[in-house]
């Protein structure tokens, strides 16, 4: 297990040259090797989706991907959503609609929703609920997450 490989993770536009064992998950590499702790780990089984990040624009569960598989790819995490002090419409919508309580699952939901809406801006309500069912939240009962994502979808389509 001590064989390590040099890889480069590009997170939110910034390159991180790191040396990882082949078993290192992308989630652990993002958090521990690159110090970006906004991505949270909720189950390590690929069920809860708290660790969702965008890899080349696609939402992925970073606990189910090896860091080496993300070598050279563009990774986006919650830390890269805002443009300086200007929050992303999805972040604003979550605050305005009370789409979060403890905030632990929030980064995963934000990245999932942003990834899906960038790919499919006109997604139907039905499909949106289907997509959001891939992540778990224990605090909100999803009511305000759905409301927030719908509100952000409208704003993202307009911009």
């Amino acid at each position: 297990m001590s064989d390590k490989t040099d890889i480069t993770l590009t997170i939110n536009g910034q390159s991180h040259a790191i040396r990882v064992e082949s078993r290192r998950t992308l989630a652990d590499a993002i958090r521990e090797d690159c110090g970006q702790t906004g991505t949270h780990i909720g189950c390590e089984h690929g069920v809860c989706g708290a660790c969702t990040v965008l890899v080349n624009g696609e939402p992925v569960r970073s606990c189910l991907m090896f860091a080496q598989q993300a070598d050279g790819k563009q990774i986006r995490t919650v830390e890269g959503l805002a443009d300086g002090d200007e929050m992303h419409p999805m972040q604003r919508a979550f605050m305005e609609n009370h789409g979060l309580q403890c905030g632990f699952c929030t980064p995963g939901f934000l990245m999932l929703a942003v990834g899906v809406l960038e790919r499919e801006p006109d997604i139907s309500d039905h499909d949106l609920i289907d997509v959001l069912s891939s992540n778990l939240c224990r605090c909100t009962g999803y009511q305000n997450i759905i409301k927030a994502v719908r509100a952000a979808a409208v704003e993202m389509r307009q911009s």
Partner: protein
Amino acid sequence: MTVHTKGSGTTWVGRSIRRLEDPSLVTGRGRFTADLPATHWVRFVRSSVAAGTIEKVSAPEGAGIVTARDLTKLKPIRPMLSKFNYVAVGQPILADGVVRFTGESIAAVYAPSKDKAEDIADQVEVEIAEGTPLIDSMDALADNAPLVHADTKHNVIVEGRIATPGFEDIWKTAHQVLRVEARSRRQNATPMEARAGHAAYDSATGRVTLTCTTQMPHLTRTAVCDILGIPESELRVVAPDVGGGFGQKMSLAPEYVLLVWLARKLSSSVAWTEDRRENLIASFHSRDQHVQLEGAFDAKGKLLALRGDIVANIGAYSCFPTTCGVEPLMALAELPGPYDVRAYDCRSRGVMTNTCPMAPYRGVSRPVITFVLERLMDKAAAAFGIEPTELRRRNLIDKFPYTSATGLVFDDGSYKETMEMAIKAIDLDAFRKRQKTARDAGRYLGIGIATFSERTGYGSPAFAARGMEITPGFETVYLTIDPSGFVEARIGSSPHGQGLRTSLAQIIADEIGIDPEFIKVVHGDTDRAPYGWGTFASRSLVLSGGASLLAAQKIRAKLLKMASHLLEAAPEDITLQSGSAHVIGTDRSVTIASMARAAYHQAHIFKGEIEPGLTETGTYDPSGTFSNACHVAIVEVDIETGRVEMEKFLVAEDAGLIINPMIADGQVHGGVAQGIGNALLEEIIYDETGNILTSTLADFLPPTTHEIPEIELHHIETLTGNSITKAKGLGEGGAIGAPAAVISAINDALSPFGVSIDEMPATPQRIRAALRNSGKLPNTLPSTGRLA
């Protein structure tokens, strides 16, 4: 939703202002325990069997490992009750010779990284002579059952009974007696952040800082120091951002004790992050109860007497600080719910088994007893041939204060009013028509009603009544305006998602005339916060809110006195608003910031009539209050598969004055979702050997967006004299009523089959089994076990 702008002239209380907590959490700048770096990482070696004697533990050469042998000077975790035939049992920090549940920690290994610690843990060999595990509480009650703890006489370690005088005489007058035997299966609170701890030794001071996912920082400090035998001044406990708790993080994790001990031993920092499997099998469980309930009714459907027997499976140890009495004794005291019944005879027992210890989980027993009691009421309604709502109408309490058969005093509430509101909003008559049409077409819709109370914000007298050696209750707030004019409220509560920083800031803002955004609520740090009891039992808004109000009233009085000096006006002619003191009807004013500056730097100008500085303390320890609500669920049951589709959920609730409607609604939403999960999906399943079959979130099933329907909320605000802010708690209510409403709806849907689902969760398997056994399934459907 309307977001009000600051200084609009009305009160801050009652507004849905955005949460002050959110900006860091939506940008990835929240700070959770697992985010901290550490020198050593700990992995626990856990028992793979439920009962047995440890014969040998061997680790690879040179591995850093701790076993019970290294911890002989540590006291066990041994919370106490002085009543209810409580038998104290101790929980060692690491299993000491005997293992009592699958997942119990046997050893702790440490290494420079998480991966290495896991590698070493995998190589630790544990030899255990397996014993006979007791998994079901009924088996543990048997006369010849083995003992989970050899130093006890039997496995019942807490037992209470309440019997009102003349019970049998009243029972004999019954027109009709109805009976329910119900089971609630074992569940796990499942916060999205599993538990984590980080202990860092500071060689300069000799102190340790324990950062951990606790709901009770001060109690954690007390407990860890008592166990280690060190002064509390040597330990600082920090609860940073905590990713939900729901009760699971209120009980002391033995793992935290080990971390502090190891940090001191290594003079270093050590950390542990619980993985999801550990959380599901070895954190804390709840709700595993068996309840038998009989109700005696008069000819008009009025409940005369209740007779109950409750058995709670409390697992292998007794949780700190509440003790394992928390579930059976809460059930005993609150089983009659919101119904007027004068005769009561109930026994409630907590039974030890070789399973994961039980601890509070959102609602504590009340989701179970509400479910059982509402089953009884539904059965009675059927027996009397009336709508379930009509039976409730004849039995709900409506005169206050109301003293229950168990001695609880209910303050003003709206039990009937919330039910009528719910019936109207859901349009019960229209539903019954729709239900009939659907039934004629072979579709099974059902409606379920649950009415209940939620005891909240109770102070030390309520806990003292339980005989707890550690009697929680009061809350204290230190409120300071610093020389720059910023406000800091340091509180003993420890919120972890409830938005309390925002709600308290709103309460304080109205008193002192400073906008909430300038009020910082500080919590979760024993070096900064006053000694308090943390956040649990729907208490923090009532207790810390009350203490905040008291402290703010003192600050207000002092500010008015200072302004009176500076503006040469009578205090009663001065208002505090938008950061300034104004003389009413004039243009004379002075900013609070400048008064704060003067309080510290120009104290002499008040000529000794006002004490320097601007800090006040408020402490609040009330008797408690009751919120109430009516929940309505509409479901459709697929009789072929047993699948339940949630069509709609409606809540009419009364939690007194709502401080922040947006936050209050969010609390109800979340509770209802957990209640729906509890009702339909979530179950920790042990096999007969004590091995857990549900150790991932793909097996233990928290609901997703698919399972939670739209939740419609309605509010009544009954202003109670039992809470000085007029706010009641509402953190648990959603979870208390929803299981009863959902299962009631399922039973209503299935009424043509004459079945009674008296078990939660009401899984498709259980529903199908009941339908098969009914013998009434249409012939076109398979009635054999093939589709089970």
